[in-house]
């Protein structure tokens, strides 16, 4: 009788201990996994959008007195030129822009054109790099003439 009771108490205690430990471990791991899930989902959306961006350069020459670059959104997502980066021969160039809007939302939507206006005093063939808000690179060569 005493042996039976001891065995029962021992079994109950061991069972409770195992359950408690399992609960603690599952709490710790689920707390961290939930946070990572949200971040990974945002990262996936970021890279998915980046892969759908595509821009075409419509002019391959421009006058240095009023230089401009005309681009067309030929991708599948809207672009926001306000956070574009423009580099000419490796130098970051400030610019203003005007979108030839079909749909009036201040975004460069698919099939819409935009003109980028800036200052650049040097002539000749120059390497132009345009980088979107999500970091997608578009490169071309443009001839600056006087």
């Amino acid at each position: 009788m005493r042996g039976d009771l001891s065995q029962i108490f021992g079994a109950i205690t061991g069972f409770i201990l195992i359950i408690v430990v399992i609960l603690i471990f599952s709490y710790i791991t689920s707390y961290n996994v939930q946070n990572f899930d949200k971040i990974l989902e945002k990262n996936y959306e970021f890279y998915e959008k980046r892969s759908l961006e595509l821009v075409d350069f419509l002019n391959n020459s421009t006058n240095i007195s009023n230089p401009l670059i005309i681009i067309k959104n030929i991708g599948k997502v809207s672009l926001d030129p306000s956070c574009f980066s423009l580099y000419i021969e490796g130098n970051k160039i400030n610019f203003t822009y005007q979108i030839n809007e079909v749909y009036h939302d201040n975004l460069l939507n698919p099939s819409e054109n935009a003109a980028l206006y800036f200052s650049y005093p040097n002539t000749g063939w120059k390497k132009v790099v345009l980088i979107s808000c999500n970091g997608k690179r578009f490169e071309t060569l443009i001839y600056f003439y006087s």
Partner: protein
Amino acid sequence: MRGFSTIIASAILFIAAAVAAYIFVSGAMGSLSNLQGAMIEREKLISSRLQSVIDIDACSYNNATNIASFYVTNRGTYPLNASMTKIFINGILFNSTIDFIQKIYNDPAWNRYETIRVSVTLPSGVYQVRVVSSVGSYDEKIAYITNTSCSVS
């Protein structure tokens, strides 16, 4: 009497088992809460790294001074400490000077869409360039430096 002693023995055994369980769980809880603390800190580090995206946009080269400048933009949502940015050329850590080319917000942090310039002294050639941010996110490009130009791809 024998039945009574059996009950007492069982009660003692039960109490001993309960005390042993309590000691074990309280000791384990201490270790587990430390473990959870360490995991929370690790999770914060990994989260900041996952939310951070930097891009080496372009480079320029001054042939007279042999200084190559790499323009790096923060395109993630996590503000960074620009002064802790490191640059590796062909796997070797180089001394560099860092300054802001484009600031949007009036604060010392390297915020989203802001661009820094990381400058190093290099002769012309082809180099593997890796820029690593303060939280460990990085971008890596090949830099082609000639006497007259610098390109990254």
